[in-house]
């Protein structure tokens, strides 16, 4: 069996190992395109993708837009500011109006968990979750796994520690769902106030002591600590957080040789990670970003190729256009 079971990508929870590996394998093919001088293939030519971003974003948004354009899709970008959402138009009306323009895919980032699921229940278009509240950020989880696979040679049996505000992190959740499915040993680490209840039932180890959490890790994924969380008493100060949970030179030195440091961005330099570590050679943060475009190309390709589910990407699609007299 090949192809994805759903026409949406709403989350990594419930996705099979086969599906995840299909996306990662497809991404490996697409990564090469971004190395070429002409970074374009016709795979999604004629398809229309709307990027509907209700939350600010640098990486994810540019990454999706580039993925779409490199696949030759037509793209439309709508953000909350500057749209009629400012006039009070509901999410439902926004989406239905866009669908009336006959679009194929909506990539949505929204502050409310379940917003993509809501759209999937009322629209015909394929919905791609670019981050819904604290729930999931499946393409981030996928690009993190792609990076791990590339740097560590695989995922099964590898020890991955996720550090930070686990309770409010969609990156943590998607990583947990995907990594556990692929057989990694996942540890979550953070102050007790940021560890959600019963998370060990998702198949992870909970460790509030940073040294014990990272001692045997093959990779640590460092989450951004949000200043707003301080205001609701989840931790007393950034300074204390940095001392107790920050990844600095000493902590890095205590980790296994060959282990890597990841971060979804944006970085709070000096808080969860020091400048030195972020810029150092054990950190793979910018490679994650490169991989993000390839992973998103793979996702869009697989979701749009609904009619040819038993074809893996054809060589023509991946390698690019041959000279074609019909195209002008």
């Amino acid at each position, binding site marked *: 069996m090949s192809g994805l079971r759903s026409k949406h990508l709403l989350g990594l*929870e419930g996705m099979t190992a086969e599906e995840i590996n299909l996306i990662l394998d497809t991404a490996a093919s697409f990564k090469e395109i971004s190395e070429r001088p002409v970074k374009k293939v016709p795979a999604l030519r004629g398809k229309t993708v709307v990027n509907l971003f209700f939350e600010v974003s640098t990486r994810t948004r540019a990454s999706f837009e580039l993925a779409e354009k490199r696949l030759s899709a037509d793209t439309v970008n709508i953000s909350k500011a500057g749209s009629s959402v400012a006039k009070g138009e*509901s*999410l*439902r009306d926004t989406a239905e109006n866009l669908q009336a323009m006959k679009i194929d895919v909506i990539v949505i980032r*929204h502050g*409310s*968990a*379940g*917003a993509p*699921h*809501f759209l999937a229940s*009322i629209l015909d278009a394929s919905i791609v979750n670019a981050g*819904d*509240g*604290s*729930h*999931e950020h499946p393409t981030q989880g996928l690009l993190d796994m792609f990076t791990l696979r590339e740097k560590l040679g695989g995922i099964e049996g590898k020890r991955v520690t996720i550090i930070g505000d686990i*309770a*409010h992190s*969609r990156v943590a*959740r998607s990583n947990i769902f995907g990594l556990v499915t692929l057989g990694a040993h996942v540890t979550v680490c953070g102050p007790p106030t940021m560890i*959600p*209840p*019963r*998370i060990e*039932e*998702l198949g992870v180890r909970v460790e509030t002591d940073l040294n014990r959490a990272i001692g045997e890790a093959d990779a640590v994924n460092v989450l951004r600590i949000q200043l707003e969380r301080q205001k*609701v008493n989840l931790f007393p100060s950034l300074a204390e957080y940095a001392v107790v949970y920050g990844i600095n030179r000493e902590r890095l030195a205590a980790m296994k040789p060959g282990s890597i440091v990841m971060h979804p961005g944006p970085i709070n330099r000096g808080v969860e990670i020091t400048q030195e570590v972020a810029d150092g050679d054990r950190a793979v943060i910018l490679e994650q970003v490169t991989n993000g475009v390839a992973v998103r190309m793979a996702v869009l390709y697989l979701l749009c190729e609904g009619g040819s589910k038993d074809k893996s990407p054809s060589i023509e699609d991946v390698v690019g256009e041959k000279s074609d007299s019909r195209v002008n």
Partner: protein
Amino acid sequence: MRDLSRWQGEREYVISNVIVVDPSRGRTMKGHVGVADSKIDFVEPGEPSAKDAQVFDGGGLHLSPGFVDIHVHLREPGFEYKETIRTGAMAAVAGGFTSVACMPNTDPPIDEKSVVEFILRRAKAAGFAKVYPVAAATKGRKGEVLGEYYDLVDAGAVAVSDDGAPVPTAQMARRVMEYASKYGIPFIEHCEDPSATADGVMHEGLYSTKLGLSGVPSYSEEVCLARDLLILKTIPAKYHAAHLSSRGSVDLVRDAKKKGLPVTAETAPHYLYFSDADLQTFDTNLRINPPIRGEEDREALFAGLKDGTIDCIASDHAPHAPQEKQVEFDQAPSGAIGLETTFSVLITTLVRPGRANLAEALSLITHRPARVLGIPAGTLERGAPADFALFDPDEEWVVERNGFYSKSNNSPFIGRTLFGKVKHTVVDGELVTLRLQRAADR
């Protein structure tokens, strides 16, 4: 003998060929019921005698006292776009409810005599279910100043509550209980600690963790309930805990009853049917306050019903307009309608799986809630108001989005199959279900 649907305003008549179930008198039998001048004249086994005047064929249906729902939101005055007293009273009789108590979180709130009188007037004009107003415990439901209970009870209020919100402090809860006790009315508490609820939108547990939604811990409800029960130890008053949702709350009430405290408690049908795992669809009709909790809480509620810790079932019927509910989960207002599905949910979750027999289940929506509020309902004894429900406990039906008499359709049961259907409802001897017009058809 004519079919019951041919009733045309007769004031004195007999319904025959029914299985009469009167849990208030421990009676179930095949027989007939006589009505005279809006009151029950007789309830007797077997066939009616030949000289009985107007006889209608009850079609083999079950006949019980009309149901009593002591916790509904009728939204009028102030929120008529969600529901009106008339449409709410229609939804009530469609579900077999002949008496309902409405909560005071209207606009203006039910904190003065004129609003009580308004509600009673509208209910009477509608002529469907009887409506008993619950007045606000504090002025404006703000939790700062006691309401004028004498005036409110004199006008017709049957209890006080700030429902939608708890009374905010121990001191205020004490004063409410003390003052309400003078008038013999119960204080109904919506148990919640708002600081513990914070921005929570569902039960705090495994599923809030999985879904990345802010959770409401069980102790939010329990902390408030425990506070009130400690006060109740020193202040003699009638205390009723609304919509219990958690195992801890059931334990607190059980303990309090063992100590002889004058506490009663209710739970709602959605807490018996669903658990927090069901929120994985992000269905906003499952966003309710207090939230639908875990399996262990659900089991505790069943146990509480069985051993009498929980006295009755109340729907907490909370209409919201479609445009309010068809939004992102954390933007949706809390609440679900329930008048038209409550009876069927009880059949489906209690009777069919053998957790209770029919009479036990019916007692939870007839004489027991009536007793909590002290209203004349829930019984078929001679001289009682002729309020009854005729139903088929075995009928299987699918809840449809457009099938409600309520103005709103925010029901989590849409698309679900339920058992048990009310076929006719009689209020003061009038077969009111004949007058129902579909909300969708109006």
